């Protein structure tokens, strides 16, 4: 039987942990798109799930299609792709499941992710500046209303901070990996 749940995550590692804990409880994710999760009853712990940040966006991208075909050949199933994020699963009996096992690809992945979050933060930041200018104009016109003056800029500000902190976390991890690669072969 299938169960559909809606949930919002901003941190993919927490999301990954949640999906895996559901799998341990006997609910295996079979379909995913943005906040929509479809689970199917399954032997508890049958699958291990991983979320990967892809180079290209979307499930219809040619490079992503080629990658997904390759994954299927090596026993990894793609549950869903939303924007840059692919949710993958592998049967636990086939051993541990890590998508990247070498330093240089982990560095590459981290760099892409931090760039993505930081560019989103910059985008949101630009909108924030625009909103604040609008607010200034409204005040000078004596036009005062709560929604556009307080709520909108606060929401945008919250997103800017969130994206920036996600980007910063990825950047810190990236620096650690780069340091490690100076000693150990990447």
């Amino acid at each position, binding site marked *: 039987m299938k169960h559909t749940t809606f949930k919002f995550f901003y941190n993919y590692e927490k999301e990954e942990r949640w999906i895996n804990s559901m799998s341990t409880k006997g609910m295996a994710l079979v379909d995913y798109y943005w906040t929509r999760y479809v689970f199917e009853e399954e032997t508890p712990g049958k699958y291990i799930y991983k979320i*990967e940040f892809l180079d290209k966006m979307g499930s219809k991208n040619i490079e992503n299609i080629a*990658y997904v075909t*390759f*994954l299927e*050949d*090596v*026993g*990894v199933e793609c549950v869903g792709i939303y924007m840059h994020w692919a949710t993958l699963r592998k049967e636990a009996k086939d*051993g*541990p499941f*890590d*998508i*990247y*096992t*070498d330093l*240089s*690809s982990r560095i*590459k*992945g981290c760099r892409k992710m931090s760039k993505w979050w930081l560019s989103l933060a910059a985008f949101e930041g630009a909108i924030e500046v625009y909103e604040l200018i609008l607010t200034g104009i409204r005040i000078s016109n004596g036009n005062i209303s709560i929604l556009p003056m307080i709520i909108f800029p606060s929401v945008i500000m919250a997103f800017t901070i969130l994206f920036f902190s996600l980007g910063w976390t990825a950047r810190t991890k990236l620096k650690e990996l780069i340091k490690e690669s100076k000693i150990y*072969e*990447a």
Partner: protein
Amino acid sequence: MPESNERGALTEAVYYILLSLYHPMHGYGIMQNVNMLSHNRVNLGPGTLYGAINTLLEKHLIESFSSDDKSRKKEYIITTLGKQTVISEIERLNELIINGTQIVKEDVE
């Protein structure tokens, strides 16, 4: 400044993938073979393997291998250039081993 001729070390993943492909193999076969060769020490992640295969194809160290059976899975095989790369890597590794054991032995004595 002229670029150095020195080629640097192969990554462990690349070295073992090249060794595996002395016989034609598909992705899953490579993963299992590398795991076996390294006595379960090296587990190639699918993302790492995919990236390595594409780079090795681009650099002509391996090529696609077409066999008669119409299986969907793509197979690969090492090229002459790939074999040369493996041979020079073995020479480099030998030098490391000889120097390492020599110095450590002197220190123990």
